[in-house]
């Protein structure tokens, strides 16, 4: 790690020097020129608008306003120019400015804030750039302005709580872990539920990749786009909006736009941030951990009271289990403050035909347990070139490298929380050498410190590059052609070195996953005014995607001695596996948009797709779409004095999901035994298999009222997934054990999404804004087996099933019917315990601005309606090491010993959860994790930020400076009793992208999300 750190920091320095070297060149002052300066402020609040784009029409010259709202344009030819200022969320302003030779012209702009900008240009889900007013489906856009002061690391963080209908779950509190993203719930059974991801128009690999067994979590490609580089994120959510993306798009599309260069002098931005992670609690709703074992491991008196012998077959039944841990850190706690350092440097500018945005960043984050660390860094280069007025070329390239060392976690016999939390019933005992000589002989010597001997690393390398050429030969015709290349390599290593406590001969595991996606994308459009009132835009295009996926896994054991293990230095290979697949999809679309009076827009389109995963008998697929956008506020009858903008919209469309690559072909898989090669049945194949198809209908409106003080969006959607792909068992007696993919399922999703924003209080020098997102997500499995006469369920992992008539998916098991009665539990088996995923999402954001310099932002998110199996409590309680059960288990021991009244004040739920063995409580049928399926509703304060723009009057150098104090996850409100309602044990069994992984969820000793505190300084010059 130290060697790596040196390399990384060296890389960071090189990046910084390179940026300085390349871009720290001031343009030569030209003769016959002058300057334009001025400020850009909000018309409503008079606050400066940071990042407003100032340009001189028809010249390609321009620049950006700084955090004080001030801009400076150099070398402007003398004469009269039209200066235009634009900023997302504000109306556009223009002003004529006359520049004299050697003089400085001043032009101040006051932009009107709009809660809804119907003239805003959007591209996601549309064939070409269109104005928001023309789009018939809902589209969420999150801009850099909303997030620039929030301590966010990547695009997953950005989306949490900010986009209605988007469910973000963090899954793990370890640094480097990626969250999961679901849009409008789950609308597929057997395929990936992840939305498509585009970065600057280039499609990238969109699935999570496991971090290796030992960490039991995953990384997401969304982590690889630095939040500092993001200009805007657009999210479209369902088949009605994603039709033009065709097969693969029915779970929505996330498009990330990174910052571009702008004409003008180089503008440098440097940001340095420092802070720490702090684990306030290892229990979601408690101020302490389950047994205080994590923070009191030197408190011997306390340690001696932590376990009870619950085995009735053991002579010490009912007695405390004594143990000590000599490897406990000297300060008596395993917990540490995890240091955080973030560095980012960027420059943007341009002159003439060339613009650039170049950035580099380095982040070093420690977790709250020893050895936990994630370091990442990378660069981005976005170059623009416009040699003529009709040609624009953009070359966007980024590279991110992340090295994460994980703490062994989750359902893992070497896991930290599992071992430390179980007290004496852990897996690491005895220590090495003289570790245990001071432990009294009547105490068990546990040695959890050796957990950290296990080295778990994930190295991610992600390279994304795209070349986009826009050619507009006439005002009416435009063409866009993109070539994209996305390369992601994820390398996982687990090393238990020679001399490890549990693996004395050592163990080495190596897994590599490589995804490569090559994409060719063409889109063209032709605009024409048919009459004075009717406009037509015809669009067409096509895409080809070539995907290569390779996954290898190798286990090696038995090393001769100390030293770094390698694949070849082990005595035997105990496991090896490889999976490779290369597949292609291609399609084209045609779309016609007709506008009447520039306020009624009708769009009709069709997508046609082929895919290598379709069966021979399936052929091409057709996905139609139709949408309507109607701007009622353009009509005279509309009360625009109150509601200045109002758009009704509706859309219906289809998109799909392809089956896995080999679903249509019968294959045999290569195997080896005792060194001999052979083959065994693989995929059974189904020549009739095709994509599943989702048809969605959505209606809604977007509105802005009271001079932009209030914005409102409301959408109702209803989707039906037909011919859903189901992995069906074949009779094993036919020889093939893998499932056969068949188009026999049917699912339904529906719900409401609304977003409200309001300027609650706005006075000179003070503004209080608030925003609320509310989403109601419903789903139902209509058919999961192609047999309408049966009510079937499909098991999808971790207690979750998809059952006809139920939300998708649900947790199933045995329910306690009388949880609060002082009686033995009354149990009903095989019943639904609750949904696995939230069905209500609430995001509440507020922002208070005081004066021109001080802003306080906060974002609270709530997720409701879902349940999570608390295996942490379940596994600890059955071992007599779960504090909330100690008193009850004492009573159960008394009952076992003959006290007939001992359980009189113990409820049925407590009796079931805290059972000590089958013989004590036969009515409960012994231990069961079903009793620990709990509501996982939670509110979480995602972030709270105090940012201060340093006044120009005290700035000694540079254009602007912002100091930010921020905290994340400061508060969690929940009744859930496990470690964290957001975590889940990663469950993909193979690392095989085609499986889509399992999507059940459970908390199994996952490290919870820490609180994060950050102080940062951003400087622009």
């Amino acid at each position, binding site marked *: 790690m130290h060697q790596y750190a040196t390399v990384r920091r060296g890389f960071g320095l090189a990046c910084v020097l390179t940026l300085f070297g390349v871009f720290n060149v001031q343009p030569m002052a030209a003769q016959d020129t002058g300057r334009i300066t001025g400020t850009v402020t909000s018309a409503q609040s008079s606050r400066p608008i940071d990042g407003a784009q100032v340009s001189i029409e028809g010249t390609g010259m321009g620049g950006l306003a700084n955090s004080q709202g001030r801009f400076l344009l150099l070398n402007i030819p003398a004469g009269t120019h039209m200066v235009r200022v634009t900023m997302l969320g504000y109306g556009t302003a223009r002003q004529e400015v006359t520049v004299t030779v050697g003089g400085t012209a001043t032009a101040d702009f006051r932009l009107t804030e709009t809660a809804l900008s119907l003239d805003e240009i959007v591209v996601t889900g549309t064939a070409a750039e269109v104005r928001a007013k023309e789009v018939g489906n809902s589209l969420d856009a999150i801009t850099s302005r909303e997030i620039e002061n929030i301590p966010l690391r990547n695009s997953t963080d950005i989306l949490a709580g900010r986009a209605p209908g988007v469910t973000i779950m963090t899954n793990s509190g370890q640094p480097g872990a990626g969250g999961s993203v679901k849009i409008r719930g789950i609308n597929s059974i057997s395929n990936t539920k992840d939305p498509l991801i585009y970065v600057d128009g280039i499609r990238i690999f969109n699935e999570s990749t496991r971090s290796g067994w030992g960490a039991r979590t995953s990384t997401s490609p969304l982590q690889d786009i630095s939040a500092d580089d993001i200009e805007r994120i657009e999210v479209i959510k369902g088949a009605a909006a994603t039709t033009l993306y065709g097969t693969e798009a029915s779970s929505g599309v996330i498009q990330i736009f990174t910052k571009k260069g702008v004409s003008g002098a180089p503008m440098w931005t440097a940001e340095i941030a420092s802070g720490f992670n702090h684990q306030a609690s290892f229990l979601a709703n408690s101020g302490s951990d389950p047994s205080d074992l994590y923070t009191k491991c030197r408190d011997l008196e306390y340690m001696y009271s932590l376990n009870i012998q619950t085995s009735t077959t053991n002579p010490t039944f009912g007695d405390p289990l004594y143990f000590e841990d000599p490897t406990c850190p000297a300060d008596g706690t395993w917990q540490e403050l995890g240091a955080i350092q973030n560095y980012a440097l960027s420059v943007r500018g341009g002159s003439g035909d060339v613009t650039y945005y170049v950035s580099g960043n380095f982040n070093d984050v420690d977790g709250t347990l020893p050895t936990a660390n994630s370091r990442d860094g990378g660069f981005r280069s976005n170059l623009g070139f416009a040699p003529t007025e009709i040609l624009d070329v953009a070359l966007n390239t980024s590279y991110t490298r992340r090295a994460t060392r994980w703490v062994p976690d989750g359902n893992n016999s070497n896991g930290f929380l599992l071992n430390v939390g179980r007290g004496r019933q852990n897996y690491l005992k005895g220590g090495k050498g003289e570790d245990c000589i001071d432990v009294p002989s009547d105490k068990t010597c546990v040695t959890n410190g050796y957990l950290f001997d296990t080295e778990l690393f994930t190295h991610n390398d992600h390279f994304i590059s795209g070349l986009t050429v826009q050619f507009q030969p006439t005002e009416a015709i435009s063409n866009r052609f993109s070539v994209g290349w996305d390369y992601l390599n994820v390398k996982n290593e687990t090393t238990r070195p020679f001399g490890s406590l549990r693996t004395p001969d050592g163990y080495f595991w190596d897994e590599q996953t490589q995804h490569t996606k090559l994409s060719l994308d063409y889109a063209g459009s032709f605009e024409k005014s048919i009459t004075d009132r009717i406009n037509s835009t015809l669009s067409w295009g096509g895409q080809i995607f070539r995907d290569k996926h390779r996954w290898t896994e190798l286990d090696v054991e038995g090393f001769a001695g100390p030293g770094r293990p390698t694949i070849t230095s082990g005595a035997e290979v105990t496991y090896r596996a490889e999976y490779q697949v290369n597949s292609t999809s291609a399609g084209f679309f045609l779309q016609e948009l007709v506008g009447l009076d520039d306020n009624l827009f009708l769009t009709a389109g069709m997508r046609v797709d*082929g895919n290598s995963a379709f069966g021979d008998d399936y052929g091409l697929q057709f996905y139609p779409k139709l949408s309507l956008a109607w701007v009622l506020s353009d009509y005279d009858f509309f009360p625009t004095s109150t509601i200045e903008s109002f758009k009704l919209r509706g859309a219906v469309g289809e998109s799909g999901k392809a089956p896995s690559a080999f679903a249509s072909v019968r294959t045999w898989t290569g195997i080896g035994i005792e060194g001999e090669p052979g083959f065994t049945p693989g995929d059974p194949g189904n020549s009739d298999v095709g994509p599943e198809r989702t048809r969605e209908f959505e209606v809604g409106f977007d509105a802005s009222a009271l001079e932009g003080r209030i914005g409102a969006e409301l959408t109702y959607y209803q989707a039906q997934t037909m011919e859903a792909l189901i992995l069906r068992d074949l009779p094993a007696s036919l020889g093939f054990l893998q499932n056969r993919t068949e188009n026999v399922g049917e699912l339904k999703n529906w719900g409401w999404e609304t977003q409200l924003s309001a300027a609650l209080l706005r006075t000179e020098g003070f503004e209080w804004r608030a925003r609320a997102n509310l989403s109601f997500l419903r789903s139902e499995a209509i058919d999961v087996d192609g047999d309408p006469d049966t009510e079937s369920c499909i098991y999808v992992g971790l207690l979750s099933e998809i059952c006809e008539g139920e939300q998708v998916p649900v947790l199933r098991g045995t329910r306690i019917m009388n949880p609060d009665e002082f009686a033995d539990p009354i149990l009903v088996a095989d019943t639904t315990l609750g949904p696995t995923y939230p069905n209500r999402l609430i995001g509440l954001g507020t922002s208070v601005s005081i004066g021109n310099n001080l802003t306080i932002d906060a974002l609270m998110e709530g997720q409701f309606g879902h349940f999570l199996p608390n295996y942490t409590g379940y596994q600890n309680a059955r071992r007599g090491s779960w504090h909330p059960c100690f008193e009850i288990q004492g009573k159960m021991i008394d009952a076992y010993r003959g006290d007939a009244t001992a359980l009189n004040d113990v409820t049925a739920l407590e009796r079931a959860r805290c059972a000590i063995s089958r013989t004590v409580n036969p009515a409960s049928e012994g231990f069961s994790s079903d009793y620990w399926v709990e509501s996982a509703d939670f509110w979480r304060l995602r972030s709270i930020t105090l940012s201060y723009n340093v006044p120009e009057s005290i700035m000694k150098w540079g254009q602007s400076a912002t100091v930010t104090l921020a905290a994340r996850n400061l508060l969690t409100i929940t009744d859930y009793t496990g470690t964290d309602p957001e975590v889940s044990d990663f469950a993909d069994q193979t690392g095989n992208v085609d499986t889509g992984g399992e999507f059940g969820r459970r908390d199994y000793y996952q490290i919870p999300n820490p609180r994060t505190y950050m102080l940062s300084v951003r400087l622009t010059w």
Partner: protein
Amino acid sequence: MLKNMRGVVRAAAVAVVLPLAACGDLLQVDSPGRIVDEDLASKDAIPGMIVGMKYDLSQAVDATQEFLALAAVELWHGGSYDWSDIPRGIITEEDIGGEWNSPQQARWVAETGVERIRDFLDAAEFGRSPAVAQAYVYAGYANRILGENFCSSVIDGGPEIPNTEHFTRAEGHFTQAITIGQAAGRADLVNAGYAGRASVRAYAGDWAGAASDAAQVPSGFEYFAEIDTEMRNEIVYETHNRFEYTVWGTYMEAAPGDARAPWQIMYDDAGQIANGANGSTPHYQQRKYTSNSDDVALSKGTEMLMIRAEAELRINGAGGIAAAYGHMNAARAEYGMAALTPALDLPSAWAELRFERGATLWLEGRRFGDLRRWYNEGAGSPAYDASLEGRATCMPISRAERLSNPNLRG
């Protein structure tokens, strides 16, 4: 306008469709390492097919042996897995997954593999091919697993059949293995054929035939399902790496020190008996298998001696006691164990034989089938064993097979 639009549409269609048409295999999916079905129709594929059969049979043994050890109470459940009901004699079709799938796959691969090979070998070559003899051996053992342990069965997605059908098929396969193995000059395959056939004839009740076949097999002969470290001997993993299953509470707990069934009590640092992974059941660790690559016997010369001993008791009754003990003691001698004194009566001889056979075949996936056939003799038979009274006597067809096989959804 419309003319322009038509032109644009045509241009777009040509631009997109032409590359697709030009690259006929553009939409092909390919994956190095996978073999499509048609590629097996070749002589070159025979070695790979035979290794595949071996692999699938080993998988079948590995997938069934821990379940069968629990069902026969060779091991007791002391862990965190869902199988705590199995040693209590409660087996439902939901409990059966890989235990059904793997033997069925092994049977199907071997039986259809023989037919594939027959398609491209001439009759003479087929009749002396060691590969074919080997395939028949694998087919025979796969059928034996299904016949001994399942209540009923299915062949190739067909209707439900009695489990005994597998003994018939196995006997046919072993007979072919003997014939072709002799033609190929492969004594190992001939011995495996005789040993396998002896075992299935015994289960089928043909004790004279079983004894005759068993007599052909040397007492030191052993034929294994090969397990390598990649496949991993599951019993080793679950009793050594994880403390899931224990000898505590089983009939071998009362026979410490038996060379055929070694086990030891595990202690923690405080000197207390270590608990299993469930935190409460004492962990007595089996030591018959100690390495992840320990093979599991499919046939042994000592099993043949047990068959001959049982045949003596069945055919000759009390008159066969001496001869039966002769065979049992010959088997014990193979393990360096002292000879037993012959019992004075038939019930005692049967009791001793049942124990001796159990110890000889301990943790080889055979005990459950033995208990079943002895239980099915009925209380009036001297062979009767009541161990399965009130318990499951066999494994049901898996629920997945019942739901997916239209011939079983009646």
